[in-house]
């Protein structure tokens, strides 16, 4: 039988009391913290006390009871798997919430349901009103009535103003969301900082043996918060401090890419918007441009980029010390750059290496080495120091980066200084070149990304304007943020203005010639003409014609410019060779046609059309060749091929004095024609009889323009439109011509009293680049110089240019039809464009507002789902970590009983020993 110490049992009772009291304390703490946000239920970790070790002479009959209870510590009850699930769900909630918030704000602008008088809508009602006024104008009693024209105009004004209002509100919304996004970004950065700082405190606590439970609660709460803004992965690792001491280390990465680390123990990163340099001319206090050596000095100001690209900064600790094991792939970027004329405000680098790295970066980026005022000169960046202009002898910090003028040779900067300068002048620079990791579009998820998408995504327009977006994010084409709605509204305003202006205008040949070249050709933002490579030029042959104006010049079906004879220009890039279109509205109106709509000559016979080759291939077998059903069809293609050097000549054949020629083959069995390719002498005019074909031809083609435009016949009623001299039509040089395509419109008919109804500013009639923000009633219409064109009929104007009194109103009817017709609304260029076809009002209510509504509806449903799931997981998680009053009441009773029992044990022992000590006779 083993020994039991007399008072040992007291210890057991004491431990019982002690532990029960601790347990009651923990229960009390749990109850008190029931409403503390993020509080995790704690529990006393208790174990039975075991007297360890075997006695040397222990009897196997000995009874070894344990020594009571021990409190080992206080633990948190938490399920990390539920944390992960909850945070993942919260990322979705955050994203959907932010998106819905943005959509609701858009909705407040663009959703017209139940708005306006009697729910007629706002812009929609303006469209209806405009149409109603046009209908009123179309009544013969009102046609040409200036009062009704004024009513149409004021309705158009209200329509334009509503467009402007919407565009303005969208712009304001974008600004607000931008501000909100930046604020969220700041808050996220603050959260990241707090987590990093808490990590350090927890680490310290743990090193000194503490648990840091409340700190962890606080940290968990911050991580929960972070998960709403960014999709994250939370990883707990153990950090070995040596001597067997290990502390917990928290690592947070983005969920999109585990190698993008936001928090690495005591090191933390910050998120920032990647800055974009844009050159701004320096001005002095008086607002005059700052010049040096006769040249304008430019500042590259740091401005936000439109795409709001985000970057993760270097991982640093609280004191700014870098993480030696920074796992992020960092690169150095120019974040801020400005040119300074003096040392004041310039950046002084502490080490030469640091400055050199920044200077190298500047020298490698065209944005910084290109001299916008002179393409023959470049900027060269060089590390000098404060004392010496050459900067090479004195190596005393701080080191400054100087900007020098050097020669630009073929677009490449050199280190040669520009000739003619007495000295090598330089300017100081202010440079900030941090090391960051750029994040791609899809690398973030959560609220922040949703807001970024709200600010940047343009849906269907992405294909045309932001092909980069699609490369990063294949779904960019279906993500629609504020820019989508802005662009869609712009498209609507633009197409509306274009269609109405076209319907109301009769363009003459000199329309483009009357325009300011600066309107016609591409210029830089200072108004200098630029060549196709973007270099400023004064050579008109290098100018680049803006896309919008290409239609006013003669082009073939494939968009290639033609000369006056209708031949394709050899130099397609020289706008001085382009020939202005001298067609009125469309040729169908102007030239005589037969019943099938084909242009006819003076005898009424249809004119021959050009054959345009779409696709051409040679094939070795006749079977693979393209078959033609009629000889005429095949002949047209053969003639076309034989007349075009592209298909007839080849450098290799030319060496042997040969060329290709094409012939017609007929297969009597299938009754089909096909085309053969022959090699013949370059000088030969026909294929020798019995020549064996070298190949056959696979070809697709279509009918193009009239081959000989001089044979077109102007309809009699339109003849009076053109300038004549001594009864003969003349071209624009005043020489008599029989080619109707060269006839020159009389001044009076250039516009039949119509003209642009809408322009890009109320002060001009400029119809280019009309957007929702700038659409206005044109200056001429506003001042009554233009009006809604009643008719384009030949007798609408007298030859002296005055109005004919006749009240035909076919053009008003046409405009009404335009209002109700389907138009194409393009989201970009031809190849990648995704188009919507519908009326103006359908574009407004179905495409713009409808898309928004559907998106909002879906997002709302998704948010509800995410919220429900998040709620469920929260409850699940709370089931583990939360405090329950019933539970705690039970604990309270339990520990109270345990306490009472331990006390009772004590009194029992006491009574027992009382007997033993005092009641036992000695």
């Amino acid at each position, binding site marked *: 039988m083993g020994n039991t110490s007399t008072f040992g049992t007291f210890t057991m009772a004491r431990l019982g009391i002690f532990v029960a009291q601790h347990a009651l304390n923990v229960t009390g703490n749990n109850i008190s913290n029931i409403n503390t946000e993020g509080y995790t239920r704690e529990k006393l970790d208790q174990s039975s006390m075991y007297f360890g070790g075997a006695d040397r002479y222990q009897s196997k009959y000995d009874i070894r009871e344990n020594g009571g209870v021990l409190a080992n510590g206080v633990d948190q009850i938490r399920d990390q798997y539920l944390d992960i699930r909850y945070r993942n769900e919260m990322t979705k909630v955050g994203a959907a919430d932010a998106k819905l918030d943005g959509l609701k704000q858009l909705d407040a602008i663009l959703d017209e349901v139940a708005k306006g008088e009697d729910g007629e809508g706002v812009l929609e009602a303006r469209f209806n009103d405009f149409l109603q006024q046009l209908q009123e104008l179309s009544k*013969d*009693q009102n046609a040409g009535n200036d009062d009704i024209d004024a009513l149409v105009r004021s309705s158009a004004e209200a329509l334009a103003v509503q467009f402007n209002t919407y565009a303005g509100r969208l712009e304001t919304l974008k600004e607000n969301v931008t501000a909100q996004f930046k604020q969220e970004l700041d808050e996220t950065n603050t959260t990241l900082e707090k987590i990093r700082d808490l990590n350090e405190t927890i680490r310290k606590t743990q090193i000194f043996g503490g648990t840091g439970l409340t700190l962890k609660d606080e940290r968990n709460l911050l991580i929960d918060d972070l998960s709403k803004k960014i999709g994250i992965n939370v990883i707990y690792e153990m950090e070995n401090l040596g001597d067997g001491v290990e502390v917990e280390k928290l690592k947070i990465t983005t969920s999109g890419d585990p190698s993008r680390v936001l928090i690495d123990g005591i090191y933390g990163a910050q998120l920032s918007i990647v800055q974009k340099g844009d050159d701004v001319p320096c001005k002095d206090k008086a607002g005059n441009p700052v010049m040096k050596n006769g040249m304008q000095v430019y500042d590259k100001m740091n401005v936000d980029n439109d795409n709001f690209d985000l970057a993760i900064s270097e991982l640093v600790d609280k004191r700014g010390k870098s993480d030696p094991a920074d796992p992020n792939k960092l690169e150095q970027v120019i974040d801020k750059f400005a040119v300074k004329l003096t040392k004041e405000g310039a950046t002084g680098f502490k080490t030469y290496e640091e400055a050199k790295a920044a200077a190298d970066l500047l020298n490698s980026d065209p944005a910084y080495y290109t001299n916008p005022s002179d393409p023959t000169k470049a900027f060269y960046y060089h590390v000098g120091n404060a004392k010496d202009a050459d900067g090479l002898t004195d190596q005393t910090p701080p080191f400054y980066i100087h900007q020098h003028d050097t020669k630009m040779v073929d677009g490449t900067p050199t280190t040669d200084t520009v000739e003619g300068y007495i000295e090598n002048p330089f300017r100081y620079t202010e440079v900030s070149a941090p090391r960051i990791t750029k994040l791609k579009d899809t690398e973030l998820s959560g609220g922040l990304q949703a807001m970024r998408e709200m600010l940047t995504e343009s849906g269907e327009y992405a294909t045309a304007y932001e092909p980069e977006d699609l490369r990063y994010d294949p779904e960019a084409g279906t993500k629609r943020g504020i820019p989508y709605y802005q662009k869609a509204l712009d498209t609507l305003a633009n197409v509306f203005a274009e269609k109405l202006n076209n319907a109301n205008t009769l363009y003459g040949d000199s329309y483009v010639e009357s325009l300011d070249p600066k309107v016609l050709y591409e210029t830089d933002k200072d108004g200098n003409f630029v060549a196709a490579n973007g270099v400023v030029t004064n050579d008109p042959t290098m100018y680049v014609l803006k896309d919008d104006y290409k239609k006013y010049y003669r082009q073939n079906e494939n968009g290639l410019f033609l000369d006056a004879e209708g031949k394709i220009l050899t130099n397609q890039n020289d706008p001085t060779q382009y020939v202005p279109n001298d067609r009125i509205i469309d040729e169908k109106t102007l030239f005589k046609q037969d019943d099938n709509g084909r242009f006819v000559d003076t005898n009424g016979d249809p004119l021959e059309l050009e054959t345009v080759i779409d696709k051409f291939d040679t094939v070795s077998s006749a079977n693979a060749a393209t078959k033609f059903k009629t000889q005429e069809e095949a002949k047209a293609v053969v003639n076309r091929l034989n007349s075009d050097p592209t298909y007839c000549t080849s450098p290799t054949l030319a060496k042997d004095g040969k060329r290709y020629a094409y012939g017609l083959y007929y297969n009597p069995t299938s009754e089909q024609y096909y085309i053969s390719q022959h090699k013949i002498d370059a000088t030969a005019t026909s294929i020798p009889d019995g020549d064996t074909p070298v190949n056959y031809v696979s070809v697709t083609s279509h009918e193009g323009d009239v081959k000989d435009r001089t044979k077109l016949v102007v309809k009699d009623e339109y003849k009076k439109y053109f300038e*004549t001299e001594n009864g003969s039509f003349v071209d624009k040089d005043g020489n008599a011509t029989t080619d109707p395509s060269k006839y020159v419109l009389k001044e009076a008919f250039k516009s039949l009293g119509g003209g642009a109804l809408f322009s890009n500013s109320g002060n001009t009639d400029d119809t280019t680049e009309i957007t929702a923000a700038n659409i206005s009633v044109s200056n001429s219409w506003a001042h009554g110089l233009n009006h809604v064109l009643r008719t384009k009929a030949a007798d609408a104007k007298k030859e002296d240019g005055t109005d004919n009194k006749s009240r035909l109103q076919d053009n008003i009817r*046409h405009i009404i039809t335009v209002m109700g017709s389907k138009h194409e609304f393009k989201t970009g260029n031809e190849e990648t464009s995704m188009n919507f076809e519908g009326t103006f009002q359908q574009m407004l209510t179905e495409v713009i507002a409808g898309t928004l509504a*559907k998106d909002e509806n879906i997002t709302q449903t998704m948010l509800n789902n995410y919220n429900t799931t998040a*709620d469920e997981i929260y409850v699940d998680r709370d089931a583990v970590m939360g405090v*329950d*009053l019933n539970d705690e*009441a039970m604990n309270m009773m339990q520990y109270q009983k345990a306490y009472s029992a331990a006390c009772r044990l004590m009194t029992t022992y006491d009574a027992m020993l009382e007997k033993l000590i005092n009641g036992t006779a000695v």
Partner: protein
Amino acid sequence: MSTFRITTNGMFRNYRSNLNKNNKRLNDTMTSVQTQRKFNTYAEDPAQASKAWRLRRSFWNTGNQIDNNTYVISKYESAYSAMAAIVDGDTEHPGLDGLLATIEGVSDTSGSARVALGRDLLSTAESIVSMMNTKYGDDFVFAGADGANIPFAWNDDGTKLLYRGVDVSLGKPEDFNKFFSKADREKYGISSPALADFDAATQKDISDIKLGTIPLDEEGYAQYYAEHEQSLEDFTADYKQTNPDATEDEAKTAYKNKVDAAYNNFVTTKGNEEIQKLTDQGVKGITTFDDAKAFYQKAKAFQNYESSYSVKNGVSYAAGVKDYKKLEEMSKEETYLDIGLGLKEDDKGNFVTGSAFNSAVSGLTFLGYGEDKNLAVLVKELGSIFYRADPESGDYASDEDRERASVLLDKIHDGIRSAQGQHVQLSADAKYLKTNLKQLETVKSELNEQIMDTESMDPAEAITEMTWAQYCYNAALRIGTNILSQSLIDYLQ
């Protein structure tokens, strides 16, 4: 975990979330009741909202079409009653029908009432013109596409009726092609005076060409010779003097020989002068005397017609061509209005005629135009003839008057028939418009119903839903008061 642990806060969170949902639902149903709308934002029901926009647009368009339709009906009614007054007459004027019956009655028997009738006819002509100048609102009804200007007016001396400045009795000029085919025009490098503006400078206005005196052929020349040089009689007399034995036949033969010789001489000498004269005037393709003859023949015919046209119509042929073309165009003027026929243009941008209603009413089609076609002019002329008849006997002032009166009477008959036909057509059109209006109104009311169905909430349904939401919300509140008080703690002593 075998037994799921529901914590106090978990329960509160659930409760809060559900209470909030209930509250939102209550708010939504209350909004429905207040606004009487099924949806208040597009996002609530995108499909229905989109449908509602389409319906509303159709509703709006139908409204415009009804407005246009009503306008045309009113205009047609004005036109109809004006025409009725002309044909059937009113209290002040006898209708054309009645007048005609009277004329026919009197012309056969006693002519004593002719002068009085003439006066009546003259005043009827005036009243026809004034009726045709009827206005609807500020718009002249019968003015075709030019409702702003008075359509019919007499010229200063009251001899011609003008429609928008053009004489309605203008004779239809012969087509220039009849005199000079296209090939001829190209050959000679000449053009009609009416087309001169449009042709090349090298072309010559035919009216300006001074023609010489080319005989048409030998026979013709003989006649010419007889008229200008010496007649056969004179020649025979002279011939017999020198050749007393000569017979008549010999003299004739000698005369013929002389004419032939002169002709040949003319062809070689004077003929060349003619060719030169025409060439100098810019006529092309005249190289032989035959060319000159052929040209002369055609040009003479045209110039004769030109002068006769000008005498008859008081305007030059060139002006006549232009004015008559104008009359034709004005009679066909169209002003189309959208009255719900599906206004549209084809792929080429050409207006599809049947998709809108032509609201233009031209006085020209009602009264007629061209030589002896216009009813008002005919009536006026007949009136003048009657008026200048002998007041006593009623005899016509001249035989010409008598013949003319009989011609005019026939023409007036034709004119009245045509006007009556137009009158009937007008009535049919007005009937069609009224049916169309009825149809449009039905469509509008159906659209309105559909809009109501799509957008508006049935009050009973809305209130039921709100009551139910209210009930759920109250129940949720009740649960709240229960769970707030319940826990084991409450039972601890």
